[in-house]
């Protein structure tokens, strides 16, 4: 009897061990709730993260980098004039099944056409569903760039462009260019529930959507038929935990294994914790203080250079970024290809600054100094930075008045050029240098345009336009490096910093990579 009981116990124990070994669950502590599950209409990183496990794009960013690799398109051809891009689609890709949908066919060109036409064509039956605002499709200039999208055959799609555009491919790797199921959309439209497409997502991705408990938990299951191979993780769970201290507490207790957005104050404890790996990388962003290059005396390069040397950058990094930032010497961060490391940053030299201002005929100067009222990914405390700059500038005879507005108002006014000196920044969308440098171009320098420096330099602008239409990466790199030298010399803005992204993970999580684009991705991640 005892032996039987012992055997039973051993069997149960072994079964328990086997089942534990079988189902790997990874919990990710995210910081907020998604708007919905369709990246075409989303605008926040939180929403993109929530939908990403379910979907693919035609081309994708290699995890942890900004390099564009094959996705649902196995290969593509760009015509000699750069006006046509033809995608050859992957065969044998299956869409997910759910309670309300079972696909009857595999992924093909119809899905690509539907996905783009929904965003592009006003007369598409899905165009107005869920609000109908395709912000990124519009902001990346797609409506102006696309001439036509044609189905050549079931596995070939041709995009015709109005002008050659080198960053186009990188744009198609962005979340807004996600490929949805045309069949699912049809079925939901016929059932009178088109919004389900955006709330109960069906995609081709590595994980299938299981459930969303509003503001609490998102659950995914591994897709065993995924074209890229079955994920190592069986169950993926997003635990929505809004407070960063609570997220850290959960990570310490192994209630989640990956988290984002730590408190800078907790970084030291994270580094010291033996169960935690603190991963980090400079973010794809830049914080800067723009001069209005149209208004005297900021129209003089010597004055801008002098002001640049009057501000103590390293004090700002230490005090405001608390180590979670890297002083910027170029307009693009070091993680983007063509970053010119040869550029020597302007030194902090208030005496030289005073001399140069005097030489330019300025003994005292009154100016405004704008700061954002909100925290931005590239700037944790614009007001504090403004105060430090104010103190530094006062030492060289520049008296500044601090100015701010409500965020939307602030941005509008800066674009109108109402400032003399104003802080702003930029977070990159697609890892392409053009996505940063267009902000210093002549087109954007018009009143109301996104170039708030209002600086328009013909040499720079010519190089910008040339680099945008050349497909050759080596050629583009040379052009961008030259442009960085021009920006350094002309100093249209004081470059503050690139913020550093920190992501602590449990030591038993392997294969996780910090994305320069700020994404959180779990295909290719495993747990020991």
């Amino acid at each position, binding site marked *: 009897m005892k032996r039987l009981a012992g055997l039973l116990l051993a069997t149960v124990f072994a079964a328990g061990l086997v089942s534990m070994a079988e189902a790997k669950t990874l919990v990710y502590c995210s910081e907020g709730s998604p*708007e919905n599950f369709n990246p075409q209409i989303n605008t926040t990183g939180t929403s993109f993260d929530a939908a990403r496990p379910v979907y693919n794009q035609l081309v994708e960013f290699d995890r942890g980098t900004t390099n564009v690799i094959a996705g649902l398109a196995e290969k593509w051809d760009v015509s000699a004039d750069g006006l046509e891009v033809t995608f050859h689609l992957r065969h044998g890709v299956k869409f997910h099944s759910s309670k309300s949908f079972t696909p009857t066919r595999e992924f093909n060109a119809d899905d690509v056409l539907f996905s783009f036409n929904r965003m592009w064509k006003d007369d598409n039956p899905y165009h107005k569903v869920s609000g109908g605002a395709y912000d990124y499709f519009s902001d990346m200039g797609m409506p102006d760039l696309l001439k036509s999208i044609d189905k050549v055959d079931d596995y070939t799609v041709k995009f015709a462009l109005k002008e050659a555009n080198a960053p186009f491919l990188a744009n198609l790797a962005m979340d807004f260019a996600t490929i949805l199921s045309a069949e699912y959309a049809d079925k939901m439209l016929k059932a009178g529930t088109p919004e389900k497409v955006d709330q109960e997502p069906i995609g081709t991705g590595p994980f299938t959507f299981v459930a969303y408990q509003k503001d609490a938990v998102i659950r995914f299951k591994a897709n065993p038929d995924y074209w890229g191979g079955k994920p190592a993780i069986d169950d993926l769970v997003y635990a929505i935990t809004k*407070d960063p201290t609570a997220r850290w507490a959960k990570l310490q207790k192994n*209630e989640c294994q990956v988290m984002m957005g730590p408190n800078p104050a907790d970084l030291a404890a994270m580094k010291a914790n033996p169960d935690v790996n603190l991963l980090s990388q400079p973010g794809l962003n830049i914080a800067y203080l723009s001069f209005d290059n149209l208004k005297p005396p900021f129209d003089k390069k010597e004055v801008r250079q002098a002001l640049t040397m009057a501000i103590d950058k390293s004090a700002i990094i230490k005090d405001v970024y608390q180590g979670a930032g890297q002083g910027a010497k170029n307009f693009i961060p070091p993680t983007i290809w063509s970053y010119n490391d040869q550029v020597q940053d302007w030194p902090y030299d208030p005496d030289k600054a005073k001399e140069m201002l005097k030489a330019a005929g300025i003994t005292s100067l009154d100016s405004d100094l704008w700061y954002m009222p909100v925290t931005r990914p590239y700037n944790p405390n614009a007001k504090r930075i403004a105060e430090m700059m104010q103190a530094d500038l006062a030492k060289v005879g520049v008296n500044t008045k601090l100015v701010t507005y409500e965020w*939307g108002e602030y941005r509008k006014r800066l674009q109108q050029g109402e400032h003399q000196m104003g802080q702003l920044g930029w977070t990159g969308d697609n890892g392409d240098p053009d996505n940063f440098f267009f902000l210093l171009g002549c087109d954007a320098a018009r009143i109301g345009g996104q170039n708030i420096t209002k600086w328009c330099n013909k040499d720079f602008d010519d190089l910008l336009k040339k680099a945008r239409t050349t497909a050759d990466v080596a050629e583009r790199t040379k052009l961008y490096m030259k442009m960085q030298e021009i920006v350094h010399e002309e100093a249209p803005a004081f470059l503050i910093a690139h913020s550093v992204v920190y992501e602590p993970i449990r030591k038993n999580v392997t294969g996780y990579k910090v994305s320069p684009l700020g994404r959180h991705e779990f295909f290719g991640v495993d747990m020991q």
Partner: protein
Amino acid sequence: MIRFIARRILVVIPTLFAIALLLFVAIRMVPGDPIEVRTGERGIAPERHAMLLHQYGMDQPLWRQFLRYLGQLVQGDFGVSIVTSEPVIKEFLTLFPATVELALSAILFAILLGVPAGVIAAVKRGGIVDHTLMGLALTGFSMPIFWWGLLLILFVSVQLGWTPVSGRIDLVYYFEPVTGFMLIDSLLSGQEGAFASAVSHLILPAIVLGTIPLAIFARMTRSSMLEVLGEDYVRTARAKGLSPWRVTGLHALRNALIPVVTVIGLQIGNFLAGAVLTEYVFSWPGVGSWLIESIARRDYPVLQGGILIIASIVILVNIGVDLLYGVLNPKIRHAR
């Protein structure tokens, strides 16, 4: 009784109208709109901005927008969230049970500890027990929810490991919500350990949300009891030879509770305000954080609908509290 309720409800309608109007105007006085607020550094082209505003009907004159909104309200349509495109009432009903569960647990905690503490302090007036209890009450009253919540998480959850950090239930438990109340749903699910998990997740948030009201109830009960204990009828009851328990527990307490019940009713509003912070700290998916986020996102339908529904509930609760007086003190009942 019926007439009393009917009269009170008639007054509710103009009250709700005024609240709806006030909300409508106040929300729109905050600069920015839902389109602009989500555009980031890029900004938005004026034409595109105008087109999207037109799509949402927000380019109409305000009075016309308000009338259209009233028309929808009368038909029970609270509108659709600009952010998620889901009906506001559906989102509210999904999230509200969590807030109610949290608030009820907190109220229960505050009453179960606060009222007896106040009674004991009153009976033992002037002694060390009285001073200790009231000192603790003052401390509890002074503790900000945010700080107290994070402190408890760091100490009780992380250091001691006694409770989970946040959320409503352990992530291994997954079942479809039936009532929205985790305590009930976990029992209904039949999954082993689910109920215990739900309870353990409720402990810290209930304590944090209930601490300030606990302090208020304790002090209120004490001062009310002291007043009642000095009344003639209490002296009469003692003189009659009734046991101290009967005198204090039945006769005195019943009358002392009347102002306390008023305070509990008035505290409902504070519970909802406190719930916002508590929900944030403990990632408790209720209406509090839903409303706060909708301010930043300028999600007008959610703000208007959510606050209007909550205002209606607060009004109904206060009517209920008034009715409760009649139960506690027949004199008030008959005066109607």
